[in-house]
C-alpha cells in the first residue's frame, strides 16, 4: 500500500511531465518508465517485503533487462497503474511500456503497439478436490459457477462457454478472492493463468483445491506500448530476442520458479520468426455489438439489485424511524447508533464486511450480500427521511386525532403516515436514483452490473467513448422515468392550492 501510494505520486508527477512525448520519457535521466500493477503481486510485480518502496518480480526484472538492453545505462523506473487500465495509461503517456502479465489478444494488437510474446501461460481450471474426478474441462461445468478475473482471455473464454455449455461466469476484480471463494464453496471452479493458480495453491499450503492438468487454452504475456510507438517497440523486441538467446530471460524465469520447457519452445519459435508486424487496426464494430446483450443483462442486474435493495431499505428504514419516533429510550439510542454507524462508514467497507467478513459465520451468495449491504446502508438514510417526515406532520393534527378517539396505530396509519409519505416522496426518489448509481459498487463482490460490464467492455475494445456513452444512456433511461413518476405522484397526492 505504501509502495502503491509512493508510485502513485511518482506517476502523477510523470503524467504532468510526459506531455512532451513518450520518447522524452525514456530519454530523460536515462530512464525506461514502465507501468504495472503491484497489487497483482508475485511473481509478476509486488512490493518488496524488505523495502516496500521498491518492487520485485519477474516482470520487474524483464523491465530491467529491457532497459539495460536499450543501452546508455538506462534504469527501469516503475509506475503503479491498475491492471485493467494499463492500455489506456500507456496511450495517455503515463509510461512507455506496460508489463504485468499483460495478455496478447487481437483487440490489444489492433489498438496498441505490442511486443513479441516473452512468456507462455496456460489457462487452467482449479476445482475442489471432491470435484477433481468429474471436472476435466469447461464442458463439465454446465450450470456451475466459474470464477475468473474480469477483462481477461479467461473471462472471454467463460463468456463464450456460457453460450455453448451453459456455465455461469463470475468476474472478480482481483485474482486472489476467486480461490478463496472456490474453497469456501461460493464458486465451483476458477479459470486463470497457471502461474496465478500455482501461486494460490502454494499460499494455501497445497490444500483446498487442485489444478486440472489439461489446460483450457494457451496464451502469452507481452509488453504493450502506445500505438504510435512502433519504433521503440521494435527496439524492445530486439532486446527480448537477445535476452532469449543469451539465456538471461530464462535465468529470470528460473529465479522466480516459472520456467518450464514450454518457455524454451516459445523462445525457439520467436527466434525463428522475423520481426513482429506493425499492429493493424481491425474493425471493431462487430466486437462492440457483441457486448450489447451482456450490457442489457448487466442493466437488468443493476435494476434488480436496486429495486430489491430499495424495498429492503424502505422496510428497515420504516422500522428504524418508528423506533426513533415512538420507541422507548434504549430503542431510540440503539437505532441512533445504527443510523450513525452506517452513515459514518463507507458502503464499500460494509460490502466487504458482509461478503468476506461474515463468510466464516454465514456464506451469503454475492447477489444476496449485495442486496443486504445496499439495503441496510440505505435504510439508515431512509430512516432519517421518514423520521423527519413523521415529525413534520403538525402536532395539532395528531392531537385532534387523539381527541377523536383514534389509537396511536390508527393515527400513524390514517393521519401521520399518509402525510409523511408525501413529505418523504421526493427525497426517497433522489435516494433511489443515488442507489441505482451506488449499485455499481457491488461489482467488488463479483456481481457484474452495468458499470462493471461497461468497464470490461471498455477494456476489451480499448476505449471508453462508446461503452461510456451507452452506459450513461442506460442509467438515464432507468433514472429519468423514476423521477418523472415521483413528480406525478407528488402532484396527484398534493391537495390543489
Amino acid at each position, binding site marked *: 500500500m505504501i509502495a502503491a501510494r509512493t508510485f502513485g505520486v511518482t506517476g502523477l508527477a510523470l503524467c504532468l511531465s510526459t506531455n512532451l512525448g513518450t520518447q522524452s520519457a525514456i530519454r530523460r535521466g536515462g530512464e525506461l518508465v514502465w507501468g504495472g500493477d503491484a497489487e497483482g503481486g508475485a511473481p509478476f510485480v509486488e512490493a518488496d517485503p524488505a523495502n516496500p518502496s521498491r518492487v520485485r518480480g519477474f516482470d520487474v526484472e524483464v523491465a530491467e533487462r529491457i532497459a539495460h538492453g536499450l543501452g546508455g545505462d538506462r534504469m527501469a523506473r516503475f509506475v503503479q497503474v491498475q491492471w485493467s487500465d494499463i492500455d489506456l495509461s500507456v496511450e495517455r503517456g503515463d509510461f512507455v511500456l506496460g508489463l504485468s502479465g499483460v495478455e496478447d489478444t487481437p483487440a490489444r494488437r489492433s489498438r496498441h503497439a505490442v511486443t513479441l510474446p516473452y512468456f507462455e501461460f496456460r489457462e487452467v481450471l482449479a476445482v475442489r478436490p471432491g470435484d477433481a474426478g468429474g471436472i476435466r474441462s469447461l464442458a463439465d461445468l454446465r450450470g456451475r459457477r466459474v470464477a475468473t478475473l474480469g477483462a481477461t482471455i479467461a473471462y472471454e473464454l467463460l463468456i463464450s462457454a456460457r453460450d455453448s455449455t451453459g456455465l455461469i461466469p463470475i468476474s472478480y476484480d482481483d485474482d486472489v478472492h476467486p480461490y478463496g471463494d472456490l474453497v469456501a464453496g461460493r464458486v465451483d471452479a476458477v479459470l486463470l493463468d497457471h502461474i496465478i493458480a500455482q501461486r494460490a495453491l502454494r499460499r494455501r499450503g497445497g490444500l483446498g483445491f487442485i489444478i486440472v492438468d489439461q489446460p483450457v487454452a494457451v496464451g502469452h504475456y507481452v509488453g504493450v506500448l502506445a500505438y504510435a510507438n512502433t519504433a521503440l517497440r521494435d527496439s524492445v523486441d530486439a532486446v527480448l530476442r537477445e535476452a532469449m538467446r543469451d539465456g538471461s530471460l530464462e535465468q529470470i524465469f528460473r529465479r522466480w520458479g516459472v520456467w518450464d520447457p514450454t518457455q524454451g519452445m516459445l523462445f525457439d519459435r520467436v527466434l525463428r520468426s522475423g520481426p513482429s508486424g506493425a499492429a493493424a487496426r481491425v474493425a471493431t464494430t462487430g466486437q462492440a455489438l457483441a457486448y450489447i446483450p451482456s450490457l442489457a443483462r448487466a442493466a437488468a442486474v443493476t435494476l434488480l439489485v436496486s429495486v430489491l435493495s430499495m424495498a429492503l431499505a424502505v422496510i428497515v428504514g420504516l422500522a428504524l424511524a418508528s423506533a426513533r419516533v415512538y420507541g422507548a429510550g434504549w430503542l431510540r439510542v440503539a437505532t441512533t447508533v445504527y443510523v450513525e454507524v452506517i452513515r459514518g462508514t463507507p458502503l464499500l467497507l460494509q460490502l466487504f464486511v458482509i461478503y468476506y467478513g461474515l463468510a466464516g459465520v454465514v456464506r451469503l451468495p454475492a447477489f444476496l450480500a449485495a442486496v443486504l449491504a445496499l439495503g441496510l446502508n440505505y435504510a439508515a438514510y431512509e430512516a432519517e427521511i421518514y423520521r423527519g417526515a413523521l415529525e413534520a406532520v403538525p402536532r395539532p393534527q395528531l392531537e385532534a386525532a387523539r381527541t377523536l378517539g383514534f389509537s396511536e396505530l390508527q393515527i400513524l396509519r390514517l393521519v401521520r403516515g399518509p402525510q409523511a409519505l*408525501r413529505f418523504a416522496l421526493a427525497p426517497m426518489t433522489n435516494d433511489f436514483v443515488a442507489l441505482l448509481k451506488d449499485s455499481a459498487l457491488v461489482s467488488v463482490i463479483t456481481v457484474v452490473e452495468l458499470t462493471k460490464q461497461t468497464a470490461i467492455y471498455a477494456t476489451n475494445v480499448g476505449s471508453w467513448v462508446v461503452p461510456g456513452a451507452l452506459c450513461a444512456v442506460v442509467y438515464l433511461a432507468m433514472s429519468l422515468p423514476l423521477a418523472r413518476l415521483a413528480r406525478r405522484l407528488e402532484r396527484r397526492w398534493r391537495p390543489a392550492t
Partner: protein
Amino acid sequence: MSALLAIDRLTVRYDSRDVLRVLSLEVARGEIVALMGPSGVGKSTALRAVAALQPFDEGRIVVEGFALAPGPVPPESRLVPLRRRVGLVFQAHALFSHLCALDNVTLALRHVLGQSRSEAEEVAAKLLVSLDVGTRAAAWPSQLSGGEAQRVAIARALAPNPPLLLMDEPTAALDPARRRALGATLRQLSEQGRGLLIATHDTEFARGNADRVITLTA
C-alpha cells in the same frame, strides 16, 4: 342535576411555575360557559387538560362520571369513555390536510365508531349543511377560508356526537358577521342539549353568547 363537566381546584405547573392555579368550574348540559382572561393565563391549558392532552398537577376533572386524576396522561386505551364524551375545536382548526372537508368529518365515524362509508358520509354531509359549509364538502383544507375551516372543524368534533364541546379561541380569525353567525351556531348546539366550554379573550363575544362567564386572572 349533576354537571356534565366538573373541574375542581385544577392546577397545572410547568417547571414549578403555575400556569393554571386552582380553577374550579362546572358546565351543565345545554349551557354555554365562557372562560375569559388575557393570553397566557391558562385558558387553553384548562381545555387541554379536560381533553386529556396534557397532565395536571393537582385537582380533579370529571366528565359525565369519567374522572381524570393528577399525574401523567393515561394511555389512550383507558381514555375511550372520555373520547366519546368530549369534542375539541382547536384555535388553528388542525384539519387533516391530506383529506377533503367531508373525509375530515367521516374519518372518526368510520374508523373509531365503525360506521360504513355511506352511513358516515350521510352524517357528515348533514352536519356540514347544518353548519352552512355543505357546498364545501369536496374542498381541501388549504382551499377553505378561516370561517369555513372552523365550521368544518366543528363538524369534525361533533361527528361522534359528544355531549361536551370545548372550543379554543373560536373568534380569533372571524370577521364581525361571522362572529354573529358563530354565536347562533353555538346557541343551536346548546339547545340540542350539549354543554359548551369556550376559551376566549373576546369579552364582547363572551358576554353576548355565554350563559356564564368565568374570568381567570394572572
